[in-house]
């Protein structure tokens, strides 16, 4: 990605000067977290000392299962409460704020298990996300002339976003009738309705068919190119390599490495913690079904 076509203050190329160490300081951090600890009983799920997320770029948060990625996500977005820690967004503290307050501050999130509102139509899903609708106040709700104008404008904007996500034909269908991939698209489209500054995606590619993954990746990049900051949790390594400008690796609750996607994958700590020695092996390769090949790979793994 070149720097010319973005109008924002910071561009992915700003990260070239950043040291690839855990907790590295960024030139233009939009989200800063310090000493965030979350324990479940005796188990420490998240223990992040320091993290800065650069504004206007796509940051990927990766790590093996149980690394605490989603828990960390929930903490930052107000859906869980940490034992200790503070974090701020655009210089304002978000510590202890609930999910709604975080969203109002401009950080909108999606969920790993898609939360499309099934018994609302696709368009209603979108309109629901429109911020500051006067008709959502109980006192004004029964006076249609107060909110008709906002509603019409929101509908226009919703249809525009839906057509970008190729969901406009489904606008009057119930969201429950959409396929899994379409629900992911709807959730992302709905998040855009709130005009977020930063969008946090929890495993956006999970359970989405490969054809749709391409278009989802395109949408995520488009968000960045429009000036939004994107932080996403992902398992799909191709996706991470393909679109992220910066990768943060978590393991056992800690941040073990940070860096650009091309180099962070080669970091020994990352290889050990997450990718394993065979991260270049195509899991779709039929030879893996051969017990001999599998046994050889397992032996290699043990002797490593």
């Amino acid at each position: 990605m070149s720097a010319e076509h973005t109008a924002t203050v910071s561009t992915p190329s700003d990260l070239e000067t950043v040291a690839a160490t855990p907790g590295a300081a960024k030139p233009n951090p939009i989200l800063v977290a310090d000493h965030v600890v979350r324990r479940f009983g005796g188990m420490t799920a998240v223990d992040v000392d320091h993290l800065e997320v650069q504004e206007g770029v796509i940051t990927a948060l990766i790590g093996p299962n149980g690394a605490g990625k989603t828990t960390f996500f929930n903490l930052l977005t107000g859906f869980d409460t940490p034992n200790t820690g503070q974090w701020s967004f655009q210089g304002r503290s978000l510590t202890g704020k609930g999910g709604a307050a975080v969203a109002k501050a401009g950080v909108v999130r999606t969920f790993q298990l898609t939360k499309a509102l099934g018994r609302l139509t696709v368009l209603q899903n979108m309109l629901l996300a429109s911020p500051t609708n006067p008709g959502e106040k109980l006192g004004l709700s029964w006076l249609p002339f107060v909110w008709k104008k906002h509603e019409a404008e929101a509908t226009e904007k919703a249809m525009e976003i839906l057509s970008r996500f190729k969901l406009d034909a489904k606008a009057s269908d119930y969201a429950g009738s959409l396929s899994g991939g379409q629900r992911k698209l709807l959730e992302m489209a709905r998040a855009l309705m709130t005009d977020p500054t930063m969008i946090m995606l929890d495993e956006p590619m999970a359970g989405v068919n490969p054809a749709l993954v391409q278009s989802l990746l395109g949408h995520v990049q488009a968000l960045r190119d429009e000036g939004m900051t994107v932080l996403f949790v992902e398992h799909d390594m191709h996706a991470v390599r393909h679109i992220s400008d910066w990768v943060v690796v978590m393991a056992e609750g800690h941040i073990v490495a940070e860096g650009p996607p091309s180099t962070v994958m080669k970091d020994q700590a990352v290889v050990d913690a997450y990718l394993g020695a065979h991260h270049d092996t195509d899991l779709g390769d039929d030879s893996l079904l051969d017990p001999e090949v599998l046994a050889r790979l397992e032996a290699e793994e043990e002797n490593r």
Partner: protein
Amino acid sequence: MEEFLRILTLSVGEILAPTTAAYAMAAIGLNLHFGYTGLLNMGQAGFMLLGAYGFGITLTLGGPIWLALLIAIAAGVVFALILGMPTLQLRGDYLAIVTISAAEIVRWFGRSTLWQEWTGGASGLQGRYYKDPFHALSPLPEGRWALGPLEYINTGSDSWFTRIFAWGLVALVLLFVWLITRSPWGRVLKGIREDEDAVRALGKNVYSYKLQALVIGGAIGALGGVIYAIPLAISPDAMGRTMTFFVWTVLLLGGAATVFGPVLGAVVFFTAYMFMRTGMRAVSENTGVGEFISSTNVEQIGGMLVGITLMCLVIFRPQGILGNKKELAFNVR
């Protein structure tokens, strides 16, 4: 044949009966809770009983009727706040547990001797203490009036005036509920019903919306209690769990999350219920069936059949009469 006509007339009479209006009203409130917001209120009878007490006691003490209505509404509001504030932050099931027990607590306080002076204890508040100021409002002339086979006095307990007042109040509240639920506010409630975390992630204060829905639905329930008390007396034992489950049956029969569902549900339910009971009693008294089912068992069998109806409804037709099948077909929870 004459007997059959009598049964039919009694059943048709239920369509306009004040009690039907009272249940319709309570179901409109419950619809706001359950149908739109997904709140499991298992204690709507508690709201109704408090509304009835608020209305009856104010009038007994000599207060004006507008104040009595306001106090009934206020009783519902306060009860909803007390129940909602601690529980609405928790998962939905907790509200169900709290409401069912709170409604019982209200009933037991009502029937205890603690405030017997005002509530009349277990025997309740006699209608004659509070009905006069209400009947004094009637603009109708003295005498009786008949609409087809239905003939009632103009002003009195089981009168045309009571029916007009009850259904007029239901119509007003229905208009209000229709206005607020078709708005963006109502859309937020439906969103919360589907998934409150998703709505929270879009920057809405879910707790506040749930509390608003609980308070409005509870106040409407209290008005239902007022309508219920006007032609009868206020007796705490008549307004217990059975009443709550009747309200639920009415709501699910008519169709949750529809505007007219509660009204239609109440009309269909009470017409059928009356037809079933009077019919069974007639059959039991006049035929050989009486040897197996005595007429004294009819009430109990009727209650059982209501329970079975509620079960069948939930299993086979969860959307009720008016509900949108599509809207319920994707209910994953």
